[in-house]
């Protein structure tokens, strides 16, 4: 689960990372009040879970509270890379002397969190690695030991902050950076994050270290340990995905018109690939998992058939743990009733396949075809999607 900038920053603040005074606003009026409460100038920033908001006009520096209200009015309601902006963050502005990059991320190849620091912020880390390797630190954090002091020293050394650089309270910037690295690690570990990124981490003109942005991703599987973040997780899901998740399904919407339902992520991906190879396009990825009961199958059909683009439905089941007769029961339960007007191609193999096929034959659902193999099912579904939808086409499919 990705957190919005302002949620990430409140986690940052609790963890002892330096952030600027800010307020969340959901209307121009709220933004104006916020700006008036903060020291001007302020920055008004769209709160969206995507990059590129700056280029899209979602970030504006405002010298007065009136300007802040106007900026909020412009930004609220924008859609940035498909994400609607429903709130803005009004944050005190600072003069930037240097931009740094700091992140901890779960690194798959190392099976451990990776601490990444670049003395050049705002640019591509890979590019820094090529051009100025001394400015880059990439060091795995051992899951059993935690962050070690020598790793913190590596970051501080790479930053190249002079000993003269110190904040208004006299804290040397080097020491502030070391503290920030340790705090980010604690936050990463204690909140079960898979990403904690500060880009840019800046040194201000007055020598202070400040996290200007926050990008935090929390491990969905660990939300049981974080009751405070659970509500946000729920709100974050889009409606259809939420419904699918609730029913125990893995669901991803795609661009095509062939609804796909199967058991097992690999099998469903494989089905989607075979549809593409046959010249079709899948409308979704929907995995009902292992051992799914009729109700789950019914819920999956419900979600898929609610997508307008779907012109044909392909059900591909290889019964291992899953019983094909259970799947057939779910199909009958939904498709046996009125209101389903797309053709359906079903392939059942493995555990209780014969029973499942018999159940479908008995139900005599119009528009439902049982295919003899996975390959044939794909061929039929692609042909069905290409053909005009109608009773005849269905029977032929």
């Amino acid at each position: 689960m990705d957190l919005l900038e302002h949620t990430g920053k409140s986690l940052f603040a609790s963890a002892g990372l330096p952030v600027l005074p800010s307020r969340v606003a959901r209307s121009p009026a709220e933004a104006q009040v916020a700006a008036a409460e903060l020291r001007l100038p302020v920055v008004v920033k769209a709160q969206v879970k995507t990059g590129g908001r700056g280029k899209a006009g979602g970030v504006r520096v405002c010298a007065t509270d009136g300007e802040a209200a106007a900026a909020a009015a412009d930004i609220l309601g924008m859609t940035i890379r498909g994400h609607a902006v429903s709130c803005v963050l009004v944050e005190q502005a600072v003069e930037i002397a240097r931009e740094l990059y700091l992140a901890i991320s779960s690194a798959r190849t190392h099976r451990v969190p990776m601490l990444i620091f670049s003395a050049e912020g705002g640019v591509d880390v890979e590019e820094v690695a090529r051009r100025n390797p001394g400015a880059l630190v990439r060091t795995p954090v051992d899951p059993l030991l935690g962050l070690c002091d020598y790793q913190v020293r590596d970051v501080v050394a790479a930053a190249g902050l002079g000993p003269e650089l110190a904040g208004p309270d006299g804290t040397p910037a080097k020491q502030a950076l070391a503290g920030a690295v340790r705090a980010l690690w604690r936050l990463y570990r204690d909140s079960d994050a898979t990403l904690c990124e500060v880009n840019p981490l800046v040194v201000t003109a007055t020598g202070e270290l400040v996290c200007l942005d926050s990008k935090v991703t929390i491990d969905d599987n660990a939300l049981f340990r974080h009751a405070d973040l659970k509500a946000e997780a729920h709100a974050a899901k889009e409606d259809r995905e939420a419904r699918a998740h609730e029913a125990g399904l893995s669901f991803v919407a795609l661009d095509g018109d062939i609804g796909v339902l199967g058991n097992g992520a690999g099998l469903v991906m494989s089905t989607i690939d075979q549809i593409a190879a046959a010249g079709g396009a899948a409308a979704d990825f929907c995995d009902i998992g292992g051992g799914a009961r009729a109700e789950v199958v019914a819920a999956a059909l419900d979600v898929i058939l609610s997508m307008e683009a779907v012109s044909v439905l392909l059900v591909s089941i290889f019964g291992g743990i899953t019983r094909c007769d259970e799947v057939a029961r779910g199909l009958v339960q939904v498709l046996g009733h009125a209101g389903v007007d797309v053709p359906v191609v079903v392939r059942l193999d493995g555990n209780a396949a014969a029973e499942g096929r018999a159940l479908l034959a008995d139900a005599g659902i119009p528009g439902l075809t049982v295919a003899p193999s996975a390959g044939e099912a794909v061929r039929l579904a692609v042909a069905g999607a290409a053909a005009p939808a109608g009773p005849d086409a269905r029977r032929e499919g």
Partner: protein
Amino acid sequence: MAILIDERSRVLVQGITGREGAFHAARMRAAGTNLVAGVSPGKGGQTVEGTPVFDAVAPAVAATGADVAVLFVPARFARDAMIEAADAGIRLVVCVTEGIPVRDMAEVTAHLPRRGALLVGPNGPGLITPRRCSAGIMPADVFTPGAVGLVSRSGTLTYEVVHELTMAGIGQSTVVGMGGDPIHGVGFLECLELFEADDETAAIVLIGEIGGQGEERAAAFVREHVSKPVVAYIAGFGAPPGKRMGHAGAIVEGSSGTAAEKKAALEAAGIPVAPAPADVVPLLQAQLERRRSP
């Protein structure tokens, strides 16, 4: 002698008194597994269909000599259960549980080697040496003994491919489902190395999917270290970037981890990649044919 498990493996089931545990324990026994013990805290002294139940893994190992543990434990308790198994001297820990937090898996995979324990899974179907031992949830009746070793990131795709193999009269030595999580135990490399060294394995099938670099590393490993024929299948050509396709590990990140890249890497290493699961069979037959008549 197959890899990782065979008829000499002494299997213990953690969570045996639960619904899933009891169900799959029975299936494993039916598949020929030497099931010696179950563990369920607070249920020690009971039996489940003749299998003695212990409160903890250590006394179960002491009493029965169990060396393989299969876990049917909810995600939030899986970390502790895997560590308990390894600390008790279990050699091979098999975890089918889905949804274990990344932090927990990072700690588990860092800890298990300290006890000399191997892990299969999590979020996978376990492994099977047909008719001799099943440690996990694979549907045993799809499998038949033979000389093809298979390692896969996907459960159902495995069954599908194995079904085709069995129908074509091609049996399997050992089939390993490594699981769909980004942090997992035994992977392509470990299995390739074991299959290459295994007398009973004549050819190897890899089943991969999007995400990570496992298939690329497997390709490099095959080029260097594997003399036996290898055939692959990859799923997820149609997966959009940034979306997890069911498995936590099945995600194209940026432009990295795509099916096309993996296919290219495998083919560059001389490993044919089947266009569909059913096509694994003819590819494998062709490979075996070529070896037989040089």
